[in-house]
């Protein structure tokens, strides 16, 4: 077959040809199932822009995005940080940003990685299907941007920033971890409009003068009952702090609730991504490797391009070990790619060990079928628990390092041997538990008819403690949303003993 390109130069025809060749391989041969692709060529400045708004093409205005941009730009200019070759957005059509500086080979790599690997994952993984609405996210972002701008116009920038700052601080605690229903983002803008119209048409100043009921005179039993009933309506405990404030805060105006909702919707949108870094990058890396290799085999890229690709590929999947000064935790690309490779190999040419570890699919001869199943049905935690095999454990020479407060040293409890495989796989999977992504903090109680103080609880597992300084500052933000005092109790999960109490000033 003819070469798609020769040398580093590319133009739009080249991109189109690469995309067509990749489609043939990825969809035709590998059976990937992708959203339609939209490739957008951008400059490095635009890439920095995209960084600062979490990779989203549209974002409401907030100083924190400006801060991120300033920091990333400084790092980039001083050479401390390179830019990603691409950013891909989970939407339909699936938008991939690729940089104009990339060589033709890199563009091919990026197209294989993002437009097919990530795209397939977004479209098929159960978390994304459950939580995100790929068809409507771009529309929703446009709505959010316009809504925040309108609020700034109506209420002033300071008032809007106050709410957004507070909501941003609670973003990690603004997520429903268990699905209730799928977001219908397209309806959000409509809903806001309907709500405002309702408020405007049904405003009745007379109602405001109706005296509220007073508890002071009520007998204690009645009072008790009212409190119980009101509390039941709040459905405590509630772990989604932003949701709780949006729905129940006594002091927020409608637009403020809407702002909280916007922050919440976006936090929820990113929730699946946080849980599937290894699986998603593993999928994309495996796909780009396979696609690029096929392109070379079929004579569509030359040896030079293959070598250039392999150079990039091997730096992407570099995993420094713990004695290396570059070590900064697990590289999701490396870990994910190793697992995918191992699974595919076990499906085709299993040995005794694989048959023992992966009885379900070892030797079934259908690597793509197995992988498609993995990508569709697992997040990181499950992927590692089920598919991290002894070969990968050995390849990374994984060890289990135990950190006990009483011990001045770390201890190596397990290594990559027969005895250790199971425990290591299970402990590593625990590391990817969604519960470990952010501290779990719940609304435990509200003093409904008195001071209206909100009581939060953080359960301390195995001695993990909140950073007190940050906790106090965050509670201050929570108070903005709740409108009254907020206090936080840190309890030991096993004994229930109260360890610390923080309160907003």
């Amino acid at each position, binding site marked *: 077959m003819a070469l798609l390109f020769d040398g580093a130069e590319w133009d*739009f025809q080249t991109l189109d040809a690469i*995309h067509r060749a990749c489609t043939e391989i990825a969809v035709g041969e590998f059976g990937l199932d992708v959203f*339609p692709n*939209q*490739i*957008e*060529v951008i400059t490095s*400045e*635009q890439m920095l*822009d995209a960084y600062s*708004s979490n990779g989203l093409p549209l974002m409401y*205005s*907030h*100083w*924190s995005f*400006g801060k991120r*941009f*300033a920091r990333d*730009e*400084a790092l980039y*200019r001083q050479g401390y940080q390179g830019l990603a070759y691409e950013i891909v957005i989970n939407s339909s059509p699936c938008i991939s*940003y690729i940089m*104009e500086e990339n060589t033709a080979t890199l563009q091919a790599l990026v197209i294989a990685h993002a437009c097919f690997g990530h795209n397939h994952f977004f479209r098929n993984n159960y978390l994304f299907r459950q939580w995100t609405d790929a068809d409507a996210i771009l529309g929703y972002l446009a709505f959010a941007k316009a809504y925040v701008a309108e609020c700034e116009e109506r209420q002033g920038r300071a008032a809007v920033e106050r709410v957004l700052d507070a909501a941003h*601080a609670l*973003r990690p605690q603004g997520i429903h971890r268990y699905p209730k229903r799928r977001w219908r983002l397209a309806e959000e803008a409509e809903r806001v409009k309907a709500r405002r119209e309702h408020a405007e048409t049904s405003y009745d100043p007379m109602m405001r003068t109706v005296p509220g009921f007073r508890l002071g005179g009520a007998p204690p039993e009645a009072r008790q009952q009212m409190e119980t009933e009101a509390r039941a309506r709040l459905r405590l405990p509630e772990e989604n702090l932003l949701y709780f404030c949006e729905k129940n805060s006594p002091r927020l105006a409608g637009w403020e609730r809407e702002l909280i909702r916007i922050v919440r919707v976006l936090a929820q949108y990113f929730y699946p991504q946080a849980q599937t870094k290894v699986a998603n990058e593993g999928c994309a890396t495996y796909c780009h490797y396979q696609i690029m290799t096929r392109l070379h085999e079929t004579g569509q890229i030359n040896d030079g391009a293959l070598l250039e690709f392999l150079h990039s590929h091997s730096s992407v999947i570099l995993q*420094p070990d*713990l004695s290396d000064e570059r*070590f*900064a935790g*697990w590289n999701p690309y490396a870990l994910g790619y190793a697992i995918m490779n191992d699974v595919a190999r076990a499906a085709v040419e299993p040995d005794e060990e694989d048959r023992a570890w992966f009885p379900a699919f070892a030797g079934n001869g259908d690597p793509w079928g197995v992988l498609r199943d993995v990508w569709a049905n697992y997040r990181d935690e499950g992927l590692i628990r089920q598919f991290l095999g002894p070969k990968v454990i050995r390849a990374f*020479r994984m*060890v289990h*390092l*135990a*950190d*006990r*407060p009483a011990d001045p*040293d*770390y*201890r190596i*409890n397990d*290594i*990559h041997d027969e005895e250790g495989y199971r425990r*290591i796989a299970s*402990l*590593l999977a625990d*590391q990817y538990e969604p519960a470990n992504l*952010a*501290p779990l903090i719940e609304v435990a109680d509200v003093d409904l008819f008195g001071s209206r103080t909100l009581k939060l609880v953080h359960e301390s*597992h*195995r*001695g*993990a*403690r*909140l*950073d007190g*300084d*940050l906790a106090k*500052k*965050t509670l201050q933000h929570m108070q903005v949303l709740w409108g009254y005092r907020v206090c936080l109790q840190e309890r030991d999960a096993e004994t229930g003993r109260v360890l610390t109490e923080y309160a907003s000033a």
Partner: protein
Amino acid sequence: MVIVDRRANPQGKSLANRQRFLERVRGDVKRAVADTIARRRVADVDTEEEVRVRVDGIEEPGFATTPEGEHDYVLPGTGTLNRGDRIRKPQGGGGRGSGRRAGRGSGEDAFEFTLTREEFLNYFLDELELPRLARTSLTQERMSKPQRAGITLYGYPSALDVRRTMRNSLARRIALGRPDKSVLERLEARVASAREAGDEDGLALAERDLAQARRRIARIPYVDPIDVRYARHERRPQPATEAVMFCLMDVSGSMTEHMKDLAKRFFMLLHLFLGRRYDRVHVVFIRHTERAAEVDEETFFRSRETGGTLVSSALEVMLEVQRARYPRDRFNLYVAQASDGDNDSADRGRVAHLMEDHILPIVRYFAYVETGGDRGAFPHHAGRRTTELWDTYESLASDYDQLAMRRLNDSAAVWGVLADLFAKSSGPVPA
């Protein structure tokens, strides 16, 4: 598949966010700007060089856990580790395997970023404003005045452009052959002479010609509406408050390099400020030794000269220029003078006279900056606390509050002195 080229999209999408961010870190930015000014060479003030701002304590808090407690990490090992091996924990409790947790805490948000030149100038000039900018004619800073701007077909009768209208009319009359007065007179004469001569044929012919000419005159108007042209007027903005800034500098031998440098910095900033804040401010540069001369900007800042010092010479040149080009009813006059304070004592009376009788009564503001030695010492006035010129001006300062005086010893203070002299809304306070 769709390919979109976004490269041509408007740049600076994050500008709104950046402005919001800069507002947040205003204090840090201002400090960085002040430092930069102190550090930079005079000529570099306005250049493209970067201003780096170090930002501390703009944090976005959130609940986070400390490295305390029990943890189990699975990590990529070296291959040499064995069950039961021990690795010393790093000091301070930070977990080695806890890369995810590293860097949490209050220091997290400290980082450096770069201001653009535009932003730098904005911050730099932000707080400054010419004091007591009197509005010479109207309350509005800008007014407009009609000015002629070509011609038009429609307009007020009063704006009729007679010459142009008549030119058109003449051309038309010639083209259409409208008989003029002399032709008519000639025909009338012909009729009269034919009548006198009793020449019947001639008379009939002459009368016919005359009647034809009269008809023509009646049919072809002298001025037709299509000839008419009006002058067009446009309202052009007119600065109601024009200001002129006289920059006076001593470049004589008694000014050390350091002093000249300070003075130059002062004017540099002043010039930057004026050129930026007001678009109709004239700047006049006058430098002096024992003789003074008006010079261009380049010469003012760069060339060197030696000689004695006669401050009055500069004041005289200033007055000459003012009288010749900047009448006081149209301009607000500002004077900024930088000197080491050294002056011929024989010149004292003349300076006082010029200042009191001629300059101070007409200027809005007279800023005098005295540049001192490296550590505030005034070497050639050992034993004296004040200088000749300072004494002279000080005696006037109590009577004229448009005269402001400051001492400047250190390049870091240039900015402060300028800001002080031209602080927004507050009038000058004599030192």
